[in-house]
């Protein structure tokens, strides 16, 4: 106590906008969002060089807030991460196994045909319908925790499944029959032939299909609104069972806010989102090139 120490504080949202020149200062006081007194203090601080601009690191780590100057995407980044993990863990193994079964083992009959048509149709179902399904089944029937990455991941997994199954089947179909015949003629069983010789060749196509499907899931907003991931959450989630937002929903939330400061936050979030999508898609291309093997 009785000690003088220096602290760094953020400018309030309105003065921040003045500082950036977004708010004109020459209009009458009663039509501005800031008073003459605030302006006077601001000018004094400027004169003493106490106001400095620097890179907003806390933006990456903070949770959402009603005050744009301290709001950040930390919570929605973690939310998106958990959601994608849940989605990947469910849709990848299920999708690949379903594709292998349908393409290689399923008997050709009416039931298989109906399943195939449905898988293809599911890929074209509007995503908000999956949100309604999540609301009806996961929240209202199974009572899973609302607004959580767990439920978000479940809903997105349903949406991603056909988007993994379809490219995986196409990749399996593209494996030349001569490879299967070669393995079968050696006395390999059907399962051995498929698992040892066909699936590895279909992996590049499957992996890039999966990543494209996941990056679509990352950008998905509509279904998550319906399962409550649109709620205002001001703590960073630490598990998939904590309420959370995700990046695209954060964009949606902030774009609706009145404060001028959220315009910049919205843009910054969009840049982060697009950066992630570009990164994931490049990774898909890298994987495809790395695992792609030529065969005659």
């Amino acid at each position: 106590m009785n000690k003088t120490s220096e602290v760094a504080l953020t400018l309030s949202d309105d003065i921040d906008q003045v500082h950036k020149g977004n708010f004109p200062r020459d209009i009458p006081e009663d039509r501005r969002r800031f008073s003459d007194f605030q302006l006077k203090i601001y000018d004094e601080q400027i004169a003493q060089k106490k106001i400095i601009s620097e890179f907003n690191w806390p933006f990456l780590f903070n949770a959402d807030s009603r005050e744009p100057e301290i709001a950040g995407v930390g919570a929605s980044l973690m939310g998106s991460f958990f959601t994608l993990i849940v989605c990947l863990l469910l849709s990848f193994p299920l999708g690949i196994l379903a594709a292998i079964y349908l393409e290689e083992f399923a008997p050709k009959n009416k039931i298989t045909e109906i399943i195939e048509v449905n898988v293809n149709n599911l890929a074209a179902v509007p995503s908000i319908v999956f949100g309604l399904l999540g609301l009806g089944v996961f929240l209202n029937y199974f009572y899973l925790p609302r607004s959580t990455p767990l439920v978000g991941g479940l809903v997105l997994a349903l949406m991603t499944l056909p988007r993994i199954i379809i490219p995986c089947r196409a990749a399996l179909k593209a494996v030349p029959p001569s490879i299967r015949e070669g393995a079968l003629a050696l006395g390999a069983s059907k399962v051995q032939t498929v698992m040892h010789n066909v699936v590895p060749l279909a992996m590049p196509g499957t992996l890039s299909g999966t990543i494209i499907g996941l990056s679509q899931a990352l950008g998905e907003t509509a279904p998550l609104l319906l399962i409550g991931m649109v709620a205002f959450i001001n703590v960073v989630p630490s598990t998939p069972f904590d309420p959370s937002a995700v990046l695209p929903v954060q964009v949606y939330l902030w774009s609706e806010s009145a404060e001028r400061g959220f315009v910049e936050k919205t843009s910054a979030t969009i840049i982060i989102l697009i950066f992630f999508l570009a990164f994931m898609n490049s990774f898909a291309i890298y994987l495809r090139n790395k695992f792609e093997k030529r065969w005659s």
Partner: protein
Amino acid sequence: MVNEKIKISTRNLNVYYGVKQALFDINLDLFEKKVTALIGPSGCGKSTFIRCLNRMNDVIDICKVEGSIKVDGEEINGKEIDVNVVRERIGMVFQKPNPFPKSIYDNIAYGPRIHGLANNQDDLDRIVENSLKKAALWEEVKDRLNQPGTGLSGGQQQRLCIARAISINPEVILMDEPCSALDPIATAKIEELIDELKKSYTIVIVTHSMSQAARVSQNTGFFHLGKLLEFNLTEKIFKNPDNKMTQDYITGRFG
């Protein structure tokens, strides 16, 4: 032909693709450690026939095989027969070389691995080396066993496929036009190889080349429109066939 041991015999073998009949009552005996050539115009059923012998037609849904196929007197055509065991005994080499997109070593080691033929790494190395030697490919690839099998030339790839087929020590090797995708030099090498292999294996080869059939085989069967028109010693077939059609086909009057 009298004192030779019959390895495979088919009786009243009929094959249908859906409603279309592809083979009609084939009765054919294949002799042990001999090369049997099957000749005939395209679409006459030669390939369909040899694919029956190791049950490869099972892969085709609409294909139905009726009749009896006996290997060493043991029936192999039937739902209750384990096809994987049949294919372990009767290997096959295809028209187009189809090495797995794996290393040369793994191409050969695949069969022994899935059938558990090697007890340890040394065993496996020995099997790979012997198979490649028997297929006359060892000298060419011994320094690059870890390189992909698909990087070899066409003729080498086909010999790799032959090495792969003999790696699990089958009793019979079926060859479905093994040289049709190869140049004359590679073809000559495969033919030499077949000559060598017949000391240990029974070989059935489908070919479109009359001269190849004459060079490599001891017995020849002539197929036409799904029927076996003539089967005899190769010499007899080429010099003095009983059937007019055979004569016409061999001399190039149709086909």
